[in-house]
């Protein structure tokens, strides 16, 4: 690319050919991206931009969109259901993120050893992630049945006399959903951690061992620091995944009992696609969007400072 005609005057024939060649390459490059970009721009970028505009209007399915400024957002401040949805989303995230992180890392460490049956286990762990949420939610709902459900029967074996009502109880519905969420996703993040563990140089462990570090010290001072890029990526993905949790809840509890498992995404769905209040639903979407951006940016900043 960097060959220039030494000492030649500008605008020689060679120069023109080169410019023509470069323009043609650019055009070809664009043509590669274009088919996907048309779909992507129209169906993803467009809606993301439109979202902000709609959130400042009172658009619903019948009327025309009228600009109402911050009205939707001020109404959100006083909307008890919205507060509930926001708190529930944070509740879900506060347990789902650390539990999944710890379990998937633990499983990955375990699988990263020479044990028989590791391959079978890897398959088993990943399987819940590829099965449909509907089938999983239906099966778990039955497993969680209050009176004769297998889970409460197993709890009974351990001497729990008064087992929780799980999805039928407003206190236990959220823990039930969290359990299923963790169960479903830990295999996926385990695979990411396993891939990360392959990049930890064995020499470092060897050296640490020779220096007399025990297993815990080696984990703290060798494995964890080497895994940092993976941990960072997993945390970001997990956080966004938790904030947007929706289909699992929709099928398992439909937000109930009462509003005990109502989450942000579901509230957006309810306001926007059931009640057709597009403007108001978009305002809630903006909040969800902002939350996801905020944690991503914060995590990037923290990660950068640690790396520095």
């Amino acid at each position, binding site marked *: 690319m960097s060959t220039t005609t030494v000492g030649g005057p500008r605008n020689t024939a060679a120069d023109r050919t080169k410019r023509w060649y470069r323009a043609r390459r*650019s055009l070809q490059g664009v043509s590669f991206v274009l088919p996907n970009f048309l779909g992507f721009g129209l169906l993803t970028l467009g809606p993301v931009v439109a*979202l902000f505009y709609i959130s400042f209007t009172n658009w619903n399915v019948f009327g025309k969109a009228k600009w109402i400024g911050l009205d939707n957002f001020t109404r959100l401040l006083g909307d008890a259901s919205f507060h509930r949805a926001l708190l529930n989303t944070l509740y879900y995230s506060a347990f789902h993120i650390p539990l999944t992180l710890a379990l998937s890392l633990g499983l990955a460490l375990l699988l990263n050893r020479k044990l028989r049956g590791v391959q079978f286990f890897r398959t088993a762990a990943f399987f819940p992630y*590829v099965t449909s949420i509907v089938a999983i939610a239906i099966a778990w709902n039955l497993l969680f049945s209050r009176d004769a459900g297998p889970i409460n029967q197993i709890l009974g074996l351990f001497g729990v006399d008064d087992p929780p009502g799980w999805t039928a109880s407003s206190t236990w519905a959220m823990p039930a959903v969290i359990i299923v969420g963790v169960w479903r996703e830990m295999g996926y993040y385990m695979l990411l951690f396993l891939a990360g563990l392959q990049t930890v140089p064995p020499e470092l462990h060897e050296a640490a*061992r020779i220096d007399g570090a025990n*297993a815990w010290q080696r984990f703290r001072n060798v494995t964890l620091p080497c895994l940092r890029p993976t941990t960072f*990526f997993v945390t970001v993905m997990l956080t966004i995944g938790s904030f947007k949790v929706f289909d699992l809840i929709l099928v398992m509890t439909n937000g109930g009992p009462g509003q005990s498992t109502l989450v942000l995404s579901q509230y957006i769905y309810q306001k926007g696609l059931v009640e057709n209040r597009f403007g108001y639903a978009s305002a809630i979407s903006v909040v969800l969007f902002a939350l996801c951006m905020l944690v991503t940016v914060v995590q990037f900043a923290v990660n950068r400072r640690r790396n520095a």
Partner: protein
Amino acid sequence: MAAPHTLPALAEPGTVGAGPAEPSDRRGTRFAAPGRILGYAVLVVAAAGLLLPFFWMVSSSLKTDNAVFSIPVTWFPDSPQWANYVEIWRISDMLVWLKNTVFLSVVVTALQLFTGSFAAYGFAKARFPGRNLLFLVYIGTIAVPWQAYMIPQFIMMSEVGLTNTPWAVIALQAFSAFGVFLMRQYYMTIPDELCEAARVDGLSEYGIYFRIMLPLSVPALASLALLTFVTTWNDYLGPLIYLRDPDLWTIQLGLKSFVSEYSAEHALIMTGSVLSVVPIAVVFLLGQKYFVQGVATSGLKG
């Protein structure tokens, strides 16, 4: 950033970078036996926890409705009710749902493979102004949850009259940024010299894509195909929002409505659930290797 020429496949555990707990000296060996036993114990418990729900699902699908919630739990029904697997086809529109789902999954996967790998070539090997910025935008939207922009998208689709047609769901799924990202990560590991050599030999950019890149990226294409197929098959929200007409329902929507309609027939509900999972289980078991590689690649930062 990724240097290796092939997909960063997960090496067999223990062969490369033997784990932190791998005993290699005498001091380690002393602890090896108990550690190993503990390891197996944890593996067995975890595997049981992961698989028991599926096992229960299958075993319940072969019970009578009353036997599903027996006390104590029956894991192996005494007389398996194979008739459940005949009955379900009769009382539900399972066949229609499966047909719709297969159609959606195949079309979405085909579109995603083509547009995704094509665009990925543009981002990885071609040069045009604004390329890196545009790629950044692509990556950025991976962090934006779909739930945040489903409302404007829905308004748009209804404006052009696509709601209540399968095309809405296809359009929704077929152009994901994830596919572009996955393929681009793979193309980055193929040396530029290869393309350069082909250019010198007079191959056009399209020729390079079709004759060199596509054949070389079969493993990545397989990963993307499997991940897309499974995602589309399992998708509940897209069809829920766009497919109102029962004739258009996918297996997920059908199953959900079946559950509400026959809420007391626990065994049949489980039969339906098993049937909805079986195709995915087969695809997953056959293509396991590519799933794992696809996930591992998407986790690597480029």
